[in-house]
Structure formats: C-alpha cells, structure tokens
C-alpha cells in the first residue's frame, strides 16, 4: 500500500571520540512526505542529518536510496544523489547574486568552452524558473544579502532544487522568520511535496510539527524512541517521548503580587540606523509608552521587523544616539547613554542572538558569567580568581547550569545551558529590570521549562521582566500583560486573560480593531 520507499537509514550509529551520540537509529522517507525529526537538543538530530547529508563519513549502519546502497563521502556527493541540506546557518555568499549562488560550484557553462565560460543566459533562465516556482519575485542579479532572511531561505531552496534534489533536509527553517514568512515557506513545502520531494524537517516549535508534518520520528539521547503518523501522536504523547516524562502544565501558574513601578517609558522612539531625517521609514520604534511593575512580566509581541527587538535594544542603549523619549527607572529619570551606564542603573539585556552578541566563545563559563560584573571581583582592577570562581559556582548552582566545570569553555555546553550562562551573567549584575529577547530560542523543552521557572523566581524577588518570545503560546503563558507592536508602534495591549493567539496575531499584522 505504501509507495516505494525513497530512502532508508538502518541501524545508524555514530560516536565522537568514544562517546556514542547515535545508537541503532533507523529512519525512512517516502516520496512526498514531510518527516519531522523531533527531540531535545543533544538528542542526536543534527548528527543524524549530517550523516544523511554526507558530512560525517564514518558511521555504523546502512543507508539505501531507492533500494540501492549508498555510501556518501561528502556533501557534494550527497548533492549528486539528490540530497540537499539547508542548514540553520545559511550557506549563501552574501555578496554574490541569487543566480551566482544558485549555481555556485556547478555553474552552467557554454559548449566548447571546456567548462570555463559561464552560460549566463541559461543560468538566468533556469534560476528564474526555479524562483517563480518558489514564488520569489526578486531581482536575481542583486547581491543576496540585500534580501530579507525569508527570501534568502527560498534562494537556498532554489539552490537545492537546481541540482534536482529529491530529499531536502531543513534544520529549523523558521527560526528567523516572521508569521507570514512562515506561511510562505509552508506553501513552498507543500508544492515540493506534490513534486515528490521528501523532506526531513527539524523544529522546536510544536505548532509547526502538526501543521506540516506527515510523520514524526522522535530521538532521545541518541536513540530512536519511535516513529508515528503526526495525526496519530497527540502533543502530550509527543512531549512524553521527547523528554521521557509527562509535563502537566507547560507554564508555571502563579499569582502576581505586583509592587511599585520599576520602569516607565514615555514616547520612546528608536531611529533606523543610517536613515536620513527626511525619509519615510525613519523609525524602527515610534512613540511607544508603557510601564512595568516589580513582580510583573510584560510581553512584547510582534512579527519580524515590528520593532519589538529594537525597542529593547534601544532602551538598553545598544545604539544610544538613535533613541529619543523619556524613561524612568524606579521613578527616577533615566537617560539612555550606553550599555555601561544601563548596567549601572540596574538594567539587563539578553539579546536574541546568543552566538553573535551574547557569549564570548573561547572564554570559560566563569569568565562569561563574570564579564558584566567584573568590578565586583576585581578591587583596584586586580582580578581575584577565587572570588570569580565563587561567583560562577554560585550562579551555576542557582541556575542549574549542567554539563561542565566553570573553567571549561562555554562552547562545550548545550544551547540551553549556554543560555543559562548568559542569564547568570545578567543576574549577577543584580538588575531591577530584565529585558529578555527570545530567552528560549533554539533550546530544548526541558531547558525552556527551567528558564520559565527561573523567570518566575526572579519576578517573585521583585524584578520586572520585559519579554519577547516569538512563540505566542509561550508569551501568553508567561506574560501578565502583552503589548503588541506593528511597524514600530503599539497596536494593542492585552491582559493575560484576554490574550489569545488569534487576537495577538491579528494585532501584530496591523489589525487595530482592538484599540
């Protein structure tokens, strides 16, 4: 009854320096299906798809493509077999055009030129074909870094299709996309399905799993827990498979005891960097006012580019020259001058990109934790290593950072633990107001749960939190009030009781019916 199996991976095993990360994992793909690979971070998902994509060569087990045994030696090999991976970090060359990127490494050349002369006309035609199929209406000759992330992602897909990929591997493709962009991507995915493409899809977002997944395979600790039709695996069961224990409520219930006002913002605006005053879209954030009390979590909703991230960055002083408006901390006027000044005024800011602007890679966990409060452990400028270690130990214990000693480099930690290290850094500065931009991005369910708990602990201790979370369910579950932003302005405010995903999404997309 089932169509001929496209690919089957059987009894796959893989170890890194003696430590097994995959054991006896099997996965099969039918043509035209979206096969979701689920599991916590460190469950082995990435390793498995890297084997499929030809990145890891030495593994145990067998792979068969249409019944034919397959041994891949490189990603290039995999591409030749029609297997293409689209990674979280995109592989496009930013300064080259879409056409050049699509054919990079396998340029179409003119006849009789011994493969030296690029056949531009043919490439342009073929690229235009692919892009129109993906609904991309862009100037293909412009450098790709001038395009939005969602466009770049589709260029990446076009690149995979250009070498007639039959199996596409997508690793968290929606991580950087906003709602409508996600819809567009899913549209593309369903088209690809009709053409018989099989897709391996990795995501941490529950709603996506059920929206596009046909089958789900769950990995945990390097082993396959099970494979099931998406329609036959309820969410609670899926979570149980992933974490091995039932989570009754995903969000901690609590009663807010709000105290005095911690932060008030009036007519706050953030200018677009480099924009001339006369230009129309000059403001990233325009005339935003709000206040947060001690013990309160204020949610900031908004799609990509709505200005919610810019608002937090602007408040913290990441770009002090671009902000106007008034802010008050604990009732006293606060002038935005820069990160150093903000830290002194007990403001803390977790950016949404822990790799680029959060962690200091190559430094130890302890040094990452102490970085923002180094003065406390260096009287007269002289570092006291013992005090620093004590600081790190204390924070690692209270935030349950696991898996490494404080002296080890931060990069060996899993995503969730890295995020906890960053939070520890900021908690060590004893902030009154925490500005958190996507604190649970790209981390596993267990770690998310722990961070939710920590946030509750902190507000209970009198902090105020301003939170951005692109997963609306999370925002509704955590925030006491939700401010929705659209094109730099506040388009709606909801209390916890009023907020629903539909209402928030409508407001975020510019529907101001609620005002």
């Amino acid at each position: 009854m089932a169509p001929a199996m496209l690919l089957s991976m059987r009894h796959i095993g893989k170890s890194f320096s003696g430590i097994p990360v995959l054991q006896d994992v099997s996965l099969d793909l039918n043509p035209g299906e979206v096969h979701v690979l689920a599991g916590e971070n460190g469950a082995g998902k990435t390793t498995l798809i890297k084997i499929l994509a030809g990145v890891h060569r030495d593994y145990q087990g067998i792979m068969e493509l249409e019944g034919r045994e397959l041994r891949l030696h490189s990603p290039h090999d995999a591409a030749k077999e029609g297997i293409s991976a689209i990674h979280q970090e995109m592989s496009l060359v930013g300064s080259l055009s879409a056409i050049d990127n699509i054919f990079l490494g396998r340029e179409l050349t003119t006849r009789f030129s011994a493969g030296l002369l690029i056949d531009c006309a043919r490439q342009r035609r073929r690229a235009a074909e692919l892009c129109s199929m993906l609904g991309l209406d862009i100037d293909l000759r412009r450098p790709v870094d001038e395009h939005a992330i969602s466009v770049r992602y589709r260029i990446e897909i076009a690149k995979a299709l250009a070498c007639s990929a039959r199996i596409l591997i997508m690793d968290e493709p929606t991580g950087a996309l906003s709602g409508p962009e996600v819809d567009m991507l899913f549209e593309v995915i369903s088209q690809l399905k009709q053409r018989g493409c099989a897709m391996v899809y990795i995501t941490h977002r529950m709603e996506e799993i059920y929206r596009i997944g046909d089958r789900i395979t769950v990995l945990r600790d390097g082993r396959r827990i099970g494979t099931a039709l998406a329609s036959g695996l309820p969410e609670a069961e899926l979570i149980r498979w992933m974490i091995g224990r039932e989570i009754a409520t995903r969000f901690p219930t609590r009663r807010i005891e709000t105290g005095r006002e911690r932060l008030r913002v009036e007519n706050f605006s953030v200018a677009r960097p480099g924009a001339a005053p006369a230009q129309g879209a000059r403001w990233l954030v325009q005339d935003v006012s709000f206040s947060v009390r001690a013990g309160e979590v204020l949610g900031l909703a908004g799609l990509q580019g709505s200005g919610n991230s810019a608002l937090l960055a602007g408040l913290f002083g990441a770009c002090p020259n671009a902000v106007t408006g008034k802010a008050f901390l604990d009732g006293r006027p606060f002038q935005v001058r820069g990160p150093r000044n903000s830290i002194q005024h007990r403001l803390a800011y977790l950016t949404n990109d822990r790799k680029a602007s959060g962690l200091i890679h190559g430094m130890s966990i302890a040094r990452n934790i102490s970085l923002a409060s180094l003065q406390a452990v260096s009287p007269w400028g002289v570092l006291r290593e013992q005090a620093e270690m004590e600081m790190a130990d204390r924070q690692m214990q209270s935030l349950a950072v696991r898996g490494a000693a404080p002296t080890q480099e931060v990069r060996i930690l899993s995503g969730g633990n890295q995020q906890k290290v960053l939070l520890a850094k900021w908690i060590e500065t004893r902030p009154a107001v925490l500005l958190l931009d996507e604190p649970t991005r790209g981390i596993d369910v267990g770690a998310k749960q722990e961070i939710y708990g920590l946030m509750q602990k902190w507000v209970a201790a009198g902090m105020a939190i301003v939170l951005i979370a692109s997963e609306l369910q999370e925002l509704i579950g955590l925030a006491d009030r939700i401010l929705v932003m659209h094109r730099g302005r506040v388009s709606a405010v909801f209390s916890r009781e009023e907020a629903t995903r539909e209402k928030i999404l409508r407001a975020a997309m510019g529907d101001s019916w609620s005002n």
Partner: protein
Amino acid sequence: MVKLNEPVARPGPVARDNLLRTPWIRALSALLFVFLLGLIFNADGAFFQWGTHRDMLRQISVIGILACGMTLVIITAGIDLGVGSVLGLNAVLFALLCLRLGWPPLLAAGACLLVGVSCGALAGSVIARFNMQPFIATLATMVFARGLAKSISGGEKVSRAVLQPDGSYGYVDLPQFFQRIDYRVFGGNLAVVTLIFLACIVICWVLLAKLRWGRYLYAVGANEEAARLSGVPTRLVKLLAYGLSGAFAAVAGICQAVQEQQGDPEAGATYELSAIAMVVIGGTSLTGGRGQIGFTLLGTLTIGYLEKILSINAVSEAGRLILTGIIIVVAVLLQRKNE
C-alpha cells in the same frame, strides 16, 4: 551481507591528538624542534657555549619587546604595523635629545615613552572611534612615523659625531645611561636589554592574567559586540592596546639607540613583521580573543634560536631568509587545531 556495521577506524590514537592540542605543548614543541636542530648542527660546539645563548637573547630582545605590545593588540583581534617605524622614530628622538640637546637620559626616555604612546593611541583612537580596519590605520602610522623620524633627523643617522663649524667632526661624550643599558649583568652572563625584555613580558603577563583590563582585551577580541553589551568600554580597551603597543615600541627604540649608540631613522624597518611572526609562532591567534604572553616568549625564543643556529652555521643571509620562511609556515601549521 557485507559487514558494514563495523565502525570505521579513526586515524591515529586519540591520546596523542589530545596532547598535541594543548597550546603550551604545541608552542613548546616548535621551540624544542629548533633547539634540537641546534644540538645537531652545533657548529663544532658553538651551540654549547653560554655566550651563544646570551648573544641570541640580546639580539632578540628589541624585537621581543615589540612582540609584547603586538600580543596585546593581536588579542583584541587587531594588528599593529606601526611598531617598527615608531621604534625608529624613538631611536632618533632619544639620540637627538641625549646626544644633541643634552637632555638627561631619563627625561629623554620619558619624552620618548610619551611620543610612543601618542603614536599608538593616535592609531588606536582612529580604529576605535571610526571603526577603521587596524591594518589600514596602523599602515598609516607606519608611514607617518617613519616620515617623522626622517624629518627630525634630517634623514641622517644621529650619532656621537657632530659636524663642527670648521668642517671636522667632534665627538660628544656618551652619557652613562647608554653604558648602563648596553651592559651585561650577572657576571657578564645576561644583557640588560634582555632584562628589559623580560620585564616587558612580566608587565604583559600581569595585565593579561591578573588585571580587569586584560580580561577586557580578550573579550573585545573574541566578541566585540557581546563585550560592548556587557558594559566593557570597548573603545578605551582598543585605545589601551594600541597605546601600550606604542609604549613598548618606544622602549624598544630607546634600547636600539643605546645599542647602536646612535639614532638611525631607518631602524626597525620590517621589525613589525618579525614581531607578528613571533606572536603567531607562539600560537596566539590572529583572529583574536586567544593567546598568552607566555606563548610570545616561546615564539620569540624559537625565532631567536633559529636565526642564531643558522648564523653560527654560516648559512648565508639568503638561505637564512628562505629557511625562516619555511619554518614559520611549518610552526603555524603545527599550531593549528586539527579540526
């Protein structure tokens, strides 16, 4: 059925890999390799004489001082091409002040330090304030300081010989300071410049390992944006790195002038490249955020021994350059992580 389930053997035992991965071992191994060369090609026992080692240390000290400042800059993910020229400028300036204007040497040294710091800070402030690429900004210092050196010296070496009105040359007395610096201590077993070099190493070690600002240097080099958002004064940190590099260049310039007993406006040309080589051979990464001053000490000794061994074996300068180039590449390849 073909047995495909068996693991594919990984090349090489893991333990040896791990040992080679410790940066200290790797830095040491390059030095030991060169040292071994010295034991084999010992030029009829010349390598076993302490004098050979003492001279090597003396010859390497001036560039080694530059390498100290270079280490600080490279840790911030920068580069300072200006140190050779700043050395030349200060050699000329020191000679001028002491030999021509009769300033007390200590005062002259202070003035030189001030000029050195200014040169470095000038480049540093352009880099920090305008986000100019360090390569370009310090390339400008390199040309600028060399020009300044030639201009204040009139393009000639500033030596003890002074042209008299009658056309003959008179000689100024050499201040005692010159002899004190260009002198050996511990029964003639160690040059004073070597001690100055070692003092510079210690200063850098204290800064990098013990002081808050040293930590900031690493943070800025590893992830400037993250450091800035954590409240690290990134601009001041860069200013500090380049300012100190200028100061070390001034110290090196004074030492050079003292050793040569004159101020040569051409002094120190291409020294910046040797200094970079020493830092890199030690294993401090040009991408910033990683490295230690101890590595630079090892790198300096490696290059020092290499040149000394080649010279005691009477290898021609041409051969020496060729071999040094090869060894640099090999040493840096050894440093790289096998990943």
